[in-house]
């Protein structure tokens, strides 16, 4: 044996170094040491779906590529209907994405359903449904039935079982006629409804909606909004239209990644409108954009 091995570790230190590696990689020596552990199987559940409040932000920050997106957010979420407003680029989308584990905070502590966000990440899609702005990016299957059934197979249902359950779920919501239709041939309103149902079928505790009504006409907007308000799930919804928050319990206003105001929807809406007027008065030209 040479004095140094291929890693340049002197012979007398070799055993020591190996022990150290073993200690960091495999804390329990009884495990099959060099066999990678099966991911997540038999992992204990870390989330408590009944946790109240379900989300606790403590000085949470988010930086992406050196740019600060969110800063110093401290708040907890528990109300049934929570709205989020703010100008473009205020960090609304990133904020709500944290609830589903789509963004991980880079500062502070975020506790979701009683568990640290990083540990909860893999379980979150079970408890938190997410509806995106553009249904064309969310519906990932060729037909409506497959789209709905996907959520059930994700939760472990067999193919046949998930398909029949998808069909009865569509019937329950009065749209069984859509079952066999190709997603590309639906109207915008139908598409968004299918996206919402595809998430609801997984029976989440919380439904997060990121500007779900942006591409819908006035009539369909009202229908979708009524649908959302009738759900038993807790709701967090982002919207630019302040009217959409009628009947909400709480409104959160973000500005430049920080919490600007948080409280009764009527009070926050009034202050938000006033702020918009102020900005227009101060900077009536397009330079203020």
């Amino acid at each position, binding site marked *: 044996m040479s004095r140094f091995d291929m890693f340049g570790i002197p012979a007398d230190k070799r055993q020591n170094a190996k022990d150290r590696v073993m200690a960091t990689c495999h804390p329990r020596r009884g495990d099959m040491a060099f066999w990678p552990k099966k*991911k*997540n*199987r038999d992992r204990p559940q870390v989330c408590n779906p009944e946790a109240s409040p379900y989300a606790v932000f403590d000085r949470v920050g988010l930086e992406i590529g050196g740019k600060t997106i969110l800063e110093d957010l401290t708040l907890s979420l528990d109300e049934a209907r929570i709205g989020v407003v703010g100008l473009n680029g205020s960090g609304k989308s990133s904020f709500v994405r944290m609830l*589903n584990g*789509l963004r991980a905070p880079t500062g502070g502590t975020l506790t979701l359903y009683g568990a640290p966000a990083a540990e909860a990440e*893999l*379980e979150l*899609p*079970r408890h938190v*449904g*997410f509806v*995106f702005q*553009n249904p*064309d*990016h*969310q*519906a*990932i*299957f*060729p*037909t409506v039935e*497959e789209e709905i059934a*996907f*959520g059930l*197979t*994700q*939760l*472990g249902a067999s*193919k046949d079982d998930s398909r029949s359950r998808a069909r009865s779920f569509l019937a329950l919501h009065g749209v069984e006629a859509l079952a*066999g239709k*190709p*997603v*590309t*041939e639906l109207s915008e309103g139908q598409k968004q409804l299918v996206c919402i149902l*595809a*998430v609801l079928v*997984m029976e989440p505790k919380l439904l997060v909606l990121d500007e779900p009504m942006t591409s819908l006409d006035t009539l369909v907007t009202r229908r979708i909004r009524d649908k959302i308000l009738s759900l038993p799930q807790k709701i967090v919804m982002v919207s630019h239209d302040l009217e959409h928050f009628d009947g909400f319990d709480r409104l959160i206003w973000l500005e430049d990644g920080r919490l600007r105001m948080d409280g009764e929807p009527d009070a926050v809406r009034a202050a938000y409108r006033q702020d918009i007027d102020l900005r227009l008065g101060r900077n009536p030209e397009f330079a203020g954009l």
Partner: protein
Amino acid sequence: MISLYLQGDSWAHRLRAGWKLLAVALASLVLFQVVSVWAYLASLAAVILCYASLGREGLAQLKLLRSLSFVLVLLLALHWLSGTLNDGVVIVLRLVVMILAANFVSITTRLDDMLEAVQPLFRPLGVLGVSPRKPALGVALVLRFAPHMLLVYGLLREAWQARTGSRNSWRLLAPFAIQSLRMSDNVAEALKARGGSEGLSR
């Protein structure tokens, strides 16, 4: 819509995807040994009868042949020129029968049934650590998003035409590529929001 599936509840829809695929495979093995024109005409009649059993919509699917007619005629012409017209007829009939039979399976089998039937073929990938679920998901994504990409390209072309007056340009390729990449980012995010490609029952 490029998924060929024809919605319905006929006898052919109720047959298991695996049996249908196996039947087509066996038929092709047998038919490649046969050289009698009459045998082919009989099997052509049988296949057309299958389409007819689906009703008017089923027969309408035969228009598939129209897009193939050019190739078939060319094939026939080549054989005629080389003095082997008889062989040509047999080859063309063989192609037509096989294509119609395969298409019949496509239009009577749902995409996910088809994928499940061929999923065992992907099983060897498991050794490499690739779940057989992933190729299936990939095929579904292609079928879903190919028409959407055409739409995106159409919108880009409109925006181009509105400002330049010309209809098409190679310069649309770069923005199209960027839009496609951005779209795939969004789709990946939406997939992750529902538990990712591996599912939640891990």
